[in-house]
């Protein structure tokens, strides 16, 4: 959905932890530099962590304690009410927002978008990188040009296209009368199933695969599908991992597209549900804080596990959200 662009080909990036020491000045001066660095970095890091610490702390407080002066950084009287109410656990909260559903929706949509994108992007990237046929460069150029275009332009037409998909959502065969793929998983997933930028990144990676390898496989009688599945894909594993994590993150936290096409609460994704919750029920901060923690956890866990691929992916693709 996002068609923002990298205007220059991304350089291959290596995130090294050990680096050549740029200078060997006298020992004492060097130590001064390091102290200065800590003096800037550590308070800065605290500023970056404090909102998260407050978020987690607040999510375990009763709503009355959240407004207490001075603020409680460690809950005096910890409570799970925010979580229970948000997830609709327990008798007294049965009428709550039933938000567990939002997280299932987010997980389903983000997983589908990621799997489809990896599959379709890599198929197209392989063709653009390694196959010769009439029209190839023209089609590839078309993909590249459209990366320049901001997503807001295609938003309205895509909304109309989805609304008029025939025979879905109460539409007749001419796509009239109903809501089509609006407010459906199809509408949430399919427009994000291919990404020109993802194709571009994977193609750049695949170009470096030696042609001899593919020719050898062809001479051995391998079909194109087999070459793609057994040779090209395994060789691209690092690139696929990096773009896959990145795609998942983008789809998980996407807000704009669900906001536009989803209307019924049982199709809300987590970011959409939370955002509408804050806009509509301004006072239930305990519920909101609990929901925010739950919405952030999956990405933070993924980040901690795949930190290396994550940072490489972001450094290579140069994009966020």
């Amino acid at each position: 959905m996002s068609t923002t662009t990298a205007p220059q080909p991304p350089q291959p990036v290596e995130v090294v932890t050990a680096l050549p020491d740029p200078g060997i000045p006298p020992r004492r001066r060097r130590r001064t530099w390091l102290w200065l660095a800590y003096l800037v970095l550590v308070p800065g890091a605290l500023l970056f962590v404090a909102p998260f610490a407050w978020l987690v702390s607040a999510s375990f407080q009763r709503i009355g304690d959240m407004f207490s002066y001075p603020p409680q950084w460690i809950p005096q009287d910890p409570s799970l009410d925010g979580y229970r109410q948000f997830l609709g656990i327990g008798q007294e909260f049965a009428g709550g927002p039933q938000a567990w559903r939002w997280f299932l929706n987010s997980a389903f949509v983000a997983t589908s978008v990621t799997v489809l994108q990896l599959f379709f992007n890599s198929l197209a990237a392989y063709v653009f990188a390694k196959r010769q046929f009439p029209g190839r460069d023209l089609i590839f150029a078309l993909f590249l040009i459209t990366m320049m275009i901001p997503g807001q332009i295609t938003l309205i037409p895509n909304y109309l296209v989805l609304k008029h998909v025939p025979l879905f959502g109460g539409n007749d065969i001419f796509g009239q009368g109903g809501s089509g793929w609006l407010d459906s998983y199809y509408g949430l997933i399919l427009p994000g199933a291919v990404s020109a930028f993802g194709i571009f990144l994977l193609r750049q990676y695949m170009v470096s695969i030696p042609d001899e390898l593919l020719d050898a496989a062809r001479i051995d009688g391998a079909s194109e599908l087999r070459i793609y599945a057994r040779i090209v894909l395994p060789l691209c594993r690092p690139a696929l991992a990096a773009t896959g994590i990145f795609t998942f993150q983008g789809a998980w936290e996407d807000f704009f597209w669900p906001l536009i096409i989803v209307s019924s609460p049982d199709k809300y994704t987590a970011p959409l549900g939370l955002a509408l919750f804050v806009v509509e029920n301004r006072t239930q901060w305990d519920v909101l804080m609990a929901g925010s923690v739950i919405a952030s956890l999956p990405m933070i866990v993924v980040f901690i596990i795949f930190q290396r691929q994550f940072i490489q992916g972001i450094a290579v693709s140069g994009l966020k959200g």
Partner: protein
Amino acid sequence: MTTATAPATTVGRHRHGLWWRVRRNGSAYGFLAVPLLLFMVFTVFALVFAFYLTFHEWSIIEPERPFVGLQNYSDMLADESYLRSIVNTFYFTGVSVPVTMAIGLLVALLLNLPLRGRGIIRTLYFLPVVTPFVVIAIVWKWLYNGDFGLFNYYLMQTGIIESPLLFLADPDLAMPSVIAMSIWSGVGFSMVIYLAALQAVPFQLYEAARVDGATRLQQLWHVTIPQLRPTTVFLLVIGIINSFQVFTQIFIMTSGGPVERTTTVVYFIYNAAFKFYEFGYASTLAFGLFALLFVFTLVQLHLYRKGEQ
């Protein structure tokens, strides 16, 4: 689609045969079919259709969708609210992008020193990048709260202010508050990109500079900063493109107010399209945004090339 049974010796003979080519190309077109179809519908057709919409008065609730020529375009140029939203977007971009990059560069330079525990520090600065943006906006809305927000509490505790500030409701403070939150969420991204670029600077350059007697600060100014130039341009272009499209924090934190002071271009387009259902006019506004972005990117790339020579 398959040549599974073709013995190796026949490959040469068929290399230029028509049938061979059709079969080979057939699989390539087959691979492309679905991605290309999706791309054609959701990008190419959408683009053409959006352009078509700009010449029509097209509302989803009205059955009549008359052709209006260039009316939408002239309306756009005379729409003071739209022009104000452009000014707001410039304000947002002009402050948030350079400051985010400068802080990101500073942190990257410091983290490039042989510090203990810099893996952890890097992770902490990067946390906002992996947190859903909606969550960040919600938490900051709370932090900014006038009655019980943490900012007001600590500012009053330390005696910097006497009475609570209405960060998001004060017309003069709303945009700076949104900008501060956006900087906070974007620093980690600039930092990672700069860090990767710093580690790619050839160390021979530093050796040569030292031989010439350059101090650390001179090395920074004459070696590091010029070497980071492509990265800086890259971050600048990406940063401008992204912040021209700022939406989520506006939607959640201020709803474009107070008195339209934080209404950005995309928020304005969103309202035109999905609040007032003026699809034709909203498409025109989107093309206006595209034109702005296009000009900006061209100017930047031109300046970059000029600077390189």
